[in-house]
């Protein structure tokens, strides 16, 4: 089982993300500067808007999804609403949604395990998880999650009982998916915040369990 690595590196996969070159001004970095400055000069965007958008992105992350998961674990009525209409329940819990996409929450049970992928690009429930990790956008994950989900799960260290059904969700249009993981045993004494701290990003994508 590989540990999570927090940096890109050249792996055997030729499509692995390349290392960052923070100190070099690549063609594409120049392109970003050029386009941004032109748009600001033309009055289409302001520097403040860009800064706010980056800050808003930075403020979004798995802690939001974890909050919804923990709330669903302790509040059956909220869980029912979350599974019925993910966007509405998330907004009720104070998580802002994006237009036009909608949030669908899919529940793991002892009988059913859910796994989320976007084979066409990188659709991801940003409103509750932030921006996706590199592997989610990788050729390997996008190619294989749909036709060999159990093998992919095994690579993440996730072994499922043979009798469990695996449901894969390919995010091909305007729906975004959040997996509601099963609550770990022995957590009866924890409050909502304590429970939320246990919920990992990967468990909400469905590649791992808790």
């Amino acid at each position, binding site marked *: 089982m590989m540990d999570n690595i927090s940096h890109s590196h050249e*792996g055997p996969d030729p499509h692995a993300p390349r290392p960052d070159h923070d100190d070099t001004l690549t063609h594409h970095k120049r*392109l970003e500067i050029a386009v941004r400055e*032109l748009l600001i000069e033309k009055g289409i*965007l302001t*520097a403040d808007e860009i800064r706010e958008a980056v800050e808003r*992105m930075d403020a979004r992350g798995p802690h939001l999804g974890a909050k919804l998961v923990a709330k669903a674990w302790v509040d059956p009525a909220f869980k029912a609403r979350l599974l019925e209409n993910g966007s509405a329940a998330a907004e009720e819990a104070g998580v802002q949604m994006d237009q036009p996409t909608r949030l669908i929450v899919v529940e793991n049970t002892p009988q059913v395990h859910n796994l989320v992928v976007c084979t066409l*690009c990188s659709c991801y429930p940003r409103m509750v998880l932030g921006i996706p990790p590199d592997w989610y956008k*990788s*050729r390997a994950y996008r190619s294989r999650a749909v*036709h060999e989900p159990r093998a992919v799960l095994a690579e993440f260290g996730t072994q499922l009982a043979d009798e469990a059904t695996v449901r894969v969700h390919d995010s091909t249009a305007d729906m975004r998916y959040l997996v509601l993981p099963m609550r770990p045993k022995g957590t009866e004494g924890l409050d909502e915040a304590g429970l939320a701290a246990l919920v990992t990003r990967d468990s909400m994508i469905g590649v791992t369990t808790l």
Partner: protein
Amino acid sequence: MRGVHDMGGLQAGPVERVEHDYQLWEKRVDALMVLLSRKRRFTVDELRKGIESLPGDAYDRLTYYERWISSITSALIHRGTITIDELRAKLADIERRPDGPKAGTP
């Protein structure tokens, strides 16, 4: 022809659990897309079409946000929001800046 982006079901190697902290320039590319689509300058589907039609091996050779900024630039030129001449002049200006990359703005 099956699109280069349309990967579901193809053979591929193991999933390498790589991630990196997104750099500021990458976050800004993302922000440009969020803002431009919110202001109805162009749509996320135009962005995707541009990425899907990148030439040759660019889809696999470029990083994620390199693909995005390429596509955003094409869409803005296509829509007439910016011109090729403006872009050329701005890139040349950036090249000439004395102390390397200075975004100037935030």
